[in-house]
């Protein structure tokens, strides 16, 4: 993970959250894209590729975990960070992942997001 992060994909069905993340990352000099659902996120990943994808766990249609797996199948180099507003334990989330896949597990952060933590994970 020595590569410098330059591009970030933000996926969340909540428009205000995406706009905020977009403003913060752009201000810090990252190249960013925003998607509001899993399908359009995958299209963006296939076309551009990103160093990091910050995904909401619970979205209508494809949820964050499933999207995580698909992104990694498309671009295994993309690091994924899951955000959740749900009061669940990290272990439950980690267990629900498919352990047969040779990818690292996503990092999980709670909403409201602690930006210091999130930025530390990205860089």
């Amino acid at each position: 993970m020595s590569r410098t992060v330059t591009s970030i994909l933000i996926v969340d069905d909540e428009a205000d959250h995406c706009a905020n993340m977009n403003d913060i990352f752009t201000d810090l000099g990252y190249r960013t894209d925003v998607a509001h659902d899993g399908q359009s996120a995958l299209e963006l990943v296939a076309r551009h590729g990103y160093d990091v994808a910050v995904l909401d766990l619970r979205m209508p249609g494809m949820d964050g975990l499933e999207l995580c797996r698909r992104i990694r199948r498309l671009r295994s180099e993309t690091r994924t960070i899951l955000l959740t507003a749900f009061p669940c334990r990290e272990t439950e989330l980690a267990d629900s992942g498919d352990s047969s896949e040779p990818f690292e597990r996503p990092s999980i952060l709670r909403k409201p997001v602690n930006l210091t933590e999130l930025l530390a994970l990205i860089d």
Partner: protein
Amino acid sequence: MTAPDSTSDDAFDRYRQLQRYVDWSEQDVANVKRMLPYVEPRFGQLVDDFYDAVGSNAETRRVLTGGSQQMQRLRLALCRWLQELFSGVYDRDYVRRRLRVGWRHVEIGLDQMYTKVALSRLRVGLVRAICECWDGDKGELLALVVSFNKLVDLDAAIIEDAYGREFTRRSQTTERLATIGQVAAGIAHELRNPLNVIKTSIYYLENAKAASPEKKAAHLDRIQRQVTVADNVIAALSDFAALPTPRSEPVALAALLNGVLLDQEPGPQFEVVCDFPEHLPPVLGDVRQLSIVFGNLIRNALEAMPGGGRLEVSAQAKDDFVAVSLRDTGIGISPENLSHITEPLYSTKARGIGLGLAITNAILNKHQGFLRVTSEPDRGSQFVVLLPMAVETAEKHSIAQAGTKP
């Protein structure tokens, strides 16, 4: 274990009722008291037999966890129970102690059927005891045994009653706690999302190196908007928590529906078509509560059409009701979900606690109204609200009068 006195008082009343049911009389009291000298010498033996049976059954043995001290206590309690049974005093305290047996059995998780068979075993032992020692008239003996059986059956009934009530109370408590857990999780999710936006906006406003005045204004707007989102979550909960008895006044539905539609601000991707007859009779109801009903239904309809669509709102008078129909061209509801949609905490949305339709249904029930739903997945749904007409009697009257005209 303690229970409010009223519980014991109610139980005593029920006990008295049951006594009347079996024609329990002073003669029965006298008969049972007469048995005491015959059966008392066998109490020790009966208690031994009782606990031998408890100990030899795997399921009942399970509750004997307190060693010899517990055994000592249990034996004394049973001895006391036997003495009270033949004491001739069947007062409040007597009943309260029987209640405790039932409560205690729920507490230790002893199935009620074992109480029945254990009582059966005691009953057989006691009847055998009196038959073996009785040297008098056979007819008298039969009368004693009949009175004794009534008494044991009354005891069994009151223990079973206490068991059942305590069991229900405990399961309801458990269920309530589970519901609170579910609600809490839902609220947590619904509040963390707006809080998240507020927090990240504040971060941006504090830390951004190149924040334009426009950006700053946009973030302040967002904070404002998300405070409203959070407030709406609380409002939905308070709607549910304190649904007051609806005020019954004539409500003009067309105006109410137009107002609700205006509040919802459907975007340009929606085609909203209203069709209300010019002289739609008013319904009987509570303006505020009916606004919640139609607000929920219209919001649901719009949310069911994420890419936009057509919403038809129409109303018509039918019999003593006004029917309001809301038809959307949205994603629809699958047949398996359709039967659950008015259950509290049932939601198929990524956002939402699952209270909207539950509140809607509760309000309509209080209005003597109905909700009918039909839906076809991928085609859309139709929600029909039926509300009682306010001018029902007046109108009937005028119709009747019109009918009498030549």
